[in-house]
């Protein structure tokens, strides 16, 4: 039986939430091997979630992105229905976008609001739906928001809170649209289930039936790992051909969600992040979408623009734009490639990236474009939503080892040490793997970074990121000092044995 993604799959908005990625897309939390083998195993249905005897904290459905994402939606209020600790990672809410100068497009005045229902002992014994309802009423009174998101937690799930019932009961009493998001940490091993759960709520409650089609509007779901400059670059390019961008969900207004169904196309930054909303908008409102490629690197930016051109009847304008942009940016990228070549003489510079599933697809072709070799790729999880795209990628750039491991830090440290690439691109989720003798840099900056230096998307981003990587080759002192002068997280035997998946438990979990 084929285990490819079912093209006839229907999103069921009558349901309270989406299926887990494990079910909808046969997602897995572990794999180590060649990309070609991964594709084969995925097709054969051999990918299963597995348990580990040694595991490290790496994020849950709620606490990977949702806590730090949904709380940035303007004119909304967020209610975390859980104990106080589930939402402490949202404490940066008031500061997140403040560092962006108003000259770069940040509104002068805006408010972000979230509250926790602060569940405690008596609530878990007696239930807390009355408290949740009071929180909704209070949110309406305090903030007068357009939408009130309710995010669930392990505790609200395990004690069996009837969220849908509470929402049905309280909605008539408040002006704001209530959007319940079922994102209990315990529901899935794959944090990407959280994206789908969020988009399910958006599709079900916020997106309005289109009154008119806006032929010049392009939906772009931009997640926290794409910076403000990436947005500006995308906006710059699309504006040049008379198109407008609707960036959701972060720092968007509720109205922007309402309009999603009116757009001409939904375009990806991160394909796997955008998947559910893209399919849902097509299914419900006929908004076409594409998931590949993302606009990373010059080659893929060209393709990305062409696809948008197709859906907006701007094909000629896009070709003219591409030509014009190439004149500016291609020589710059060539210069970067030459620099890399000079640095390594006859060999190739090897990079090892800690990527999400989406960045697996976006960064590897870009590294290839720069003439860098990808020693291997570390990815958070993997599912059959990107099977064909991965296949195409392997055709384009050749086979590559892939470690799927939900950012398990010890496994990543092992792979980094044993592969010993020239540059390792890390993120905070990689633990101490940055302590090494060779080069280290980050895989990406974050949404509120306004520095053109940090951009990665579009043409300007391709050049900026190339220069950024070049710059990283001039620096080793920080990681070297820390490697030599501070403790490693693991005993030496860990690195001496060959298997990063040493602690994988062989029997499959549910």
């Amino acid at each position, binding site marked *: 039986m084929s285990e490819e993604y079912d093209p006839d799959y229907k999103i069921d908005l009558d349901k309270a939430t989406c299926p887990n990625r494990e079910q909808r897309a046969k997602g897995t939390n572990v794999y180590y091997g060649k990309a070609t083998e991964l594709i084969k195993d995925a097709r054969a249905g051999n990918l299963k979630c597995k348990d580990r005897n040694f595991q490290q904290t790496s994020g849950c459905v709620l606490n990977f992105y949702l806590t730090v994402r949904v709380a940035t939606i303007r004119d909304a209020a967020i209610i975390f229905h859980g104990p106080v600790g589930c939402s402490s990672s949202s*404490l940066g809410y008031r500061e997140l976008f403040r560092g962006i100068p108003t000259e770069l497009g940040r509104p002068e005045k805006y408010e972000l609001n979230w509250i926790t229902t602060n569940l405690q002992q008596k609530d878990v014994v007696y239930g807390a739906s009355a408290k949740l309802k009071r929180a909704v009423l209070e949110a309406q009174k305090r903030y007068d928001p357009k939408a009130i998101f309710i995010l669930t937690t392990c505790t609200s799930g395990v004690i069996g809170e009837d969220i849908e019932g509470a929402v049905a009961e309280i909605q008539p009493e408040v002006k704001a649209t209530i959007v319940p998001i079922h994102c209990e940490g315990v529901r899935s091993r794959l944090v990407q289930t959280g994206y789908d759960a969020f988009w399910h709520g958006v599709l079900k409650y916020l997106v309005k039936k289109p009154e008119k089609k806006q032929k010049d509007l392009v939906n772009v779901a931009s997640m926290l790992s794409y910076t403000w400059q990436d947005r500006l670059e995308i906006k710059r390019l699309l504006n040049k051909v008379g198109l407008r961008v609707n960036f959701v969900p972060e720092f968007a207004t509720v109205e922007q969600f309402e309009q999603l169904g009116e757009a001409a196309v939904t375009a990806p930054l991160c394909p796997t992040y955008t998947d559910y909303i893209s399919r849902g908008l097509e299914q419900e409102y006929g908004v076409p979408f594409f998931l590949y490629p993302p606009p990373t690197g010059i080659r893929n930016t060209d393709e990305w623009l062409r696809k948008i051109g197709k859906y907006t009847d701007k094909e000629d304008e896009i070709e003219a734009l591409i030509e014009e942009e190439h004149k500016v940016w291609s020589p710059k990228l060539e210069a970067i490639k030459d620099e890399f070549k000079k640095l390594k003489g006859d060999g190739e510079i090897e990079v090892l990236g800690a990527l999400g599933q989406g960045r697996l697809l976006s960064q590897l072709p870009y590294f290839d474009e720069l003439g860098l070799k990808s020693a291997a790729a570390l990815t958070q999880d993997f599912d059959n939503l990107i099977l064909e795209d991965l296949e195409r990628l392997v055709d384009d750039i050749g086979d590559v080892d892939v470690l799927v491991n939900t950012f398990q830090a010890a496994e990543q440290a092992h792979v980094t040490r044993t592969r010993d690439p020239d540059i390792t691109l890390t993120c905070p989720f990689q633990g101490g793997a940055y302590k090494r003798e060779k080069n280290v840099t980050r895989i990406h900056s974050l949404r509120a970074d306004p520095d053109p230096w940090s951009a990665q998307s579009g043409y300007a981003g391709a050049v900026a990121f190339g220069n950024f990587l070049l710059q990283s080759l001039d620096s080793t002192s920080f990681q070297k000092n820390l490697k030599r002068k501070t403790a490693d997280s693991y005993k030496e035997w860990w690195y001496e044995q060959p298997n990063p998946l040493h602690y994988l438990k062989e029997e499959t979990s549910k």
Partner: protein
Amino acid sequence: MSTKEDKKIEEEVFDNTLGTEFVEAPKYSCALAGAYATTLGIYGVVPLLHAGLGCGLGQLFGQLYAGGQNAGGPVGGTSTPTTGLVEEHVIFGGEDKLRRLIESSAELMEGDAFAVISGCIPSLIGDDVEAVIRDFEGKVPLININAPGFSGSSYEGYELFFEAVIDQILEPLPKEKGLVNVFGIVPYQHIFWKGEVDAVKKLLESIGLKANVIFTEFNGFEKLKEIPKAEYNLVLSSWNGHRIVKKLEEKFDTPFIAFPSVPVGPKQTNYFLRTVGEKLDVSTEIIEEFVDNEERKAYRFIEYAGDAIILVRPHSYFAVVADSNAVINITQFLANEVGYLPDIIQITDNPPEEYRDAIIKEITDKLETPVKPDIFFENDSHLAREKLRDRPFQFLFSSSLESPTAMSELGALHVTVGFPSYNRVILGDSYTGYAGGLRLMEDFISTFAGPL
């Protein structure tokens, strides 16, 4: 909207560190987070989170980064082992997973002891964690901390950690004269924790005493086990650590001396050293010589700030919105050493009811100004913000939450002095002692300093 039910809840006495109702962005995390942060403060003890997949990662953002933009160190953040409980464990229990995690962690990670911190899920599904831990007796040194997030705030997690240590690890030891333990400073939650324990230790050593500050000592587990040796316990908080020192008094007959907070600046530090010295029979000569010397130097240095203060911002109104410890020592320093006027004080850490009068008294009784500040206990960041509007204060000492809008909304210069502190990185800094007072002056004067 006020219903009968609302009323009942408002009247309910706070019997924990959480308050009772929903709240916007409270300035602390949960009990699991506090126990986790406390463990990370003790070098050599490895935290094992018996909890959901994202509990540790959530606290990396919401307790560690928020605690002075600090990472977790070699066993914190994503290096922290966890059972990562999901639905199947909810159904079948998480005990087996915990057993396997303890075995593998002890095999893979360097640790003098391992602290099993159990969160909401094991508590809700009724895991028998104690039984699992018993199986490792004599094999792996373990501390069992039951800290479900719904049982309390980060501050509660600190108490739970030490209560577990007292119950499970500590044995009576002969007392060592002149040795004191230091409690009341909660790692990460008190954002200056590293600098505070270091400064307190040095101050006590300066008058010939020895201090076991436990945190940031490389033999942290040994330091934990030495707790019963102390002649006295010092608790440097109006409420944090009080349960711990009372328990230690019961169990090991160690008396304690309570201070309202860590001392900031010459006046508070003099009082601290004299009080401790007297109790521990340090000769008055030693104390006075040290105090005189340090005080003289501190004021000689403070004099350098005289022109900036007097010419630009003399006798200014200020507001403090922070935890009890910071509220007390900063208000006293500014009012009694800089001549500033306390306008409004909001206490964000939700101290249990029984400690509240003493905290208010501590703030008001010692003020060397006729100005009486309005004092509120307020853990809701929205309500705290509302209470700050239309007031005369020119300086706001608070968390980084208020920093972006302090000037535009309130016309106040802002200094981050409390949790969450995302915009202020604190590696070893603190306001403790004579030098700490100078540091506080540098910080707030730098918000307005310029050519005169």
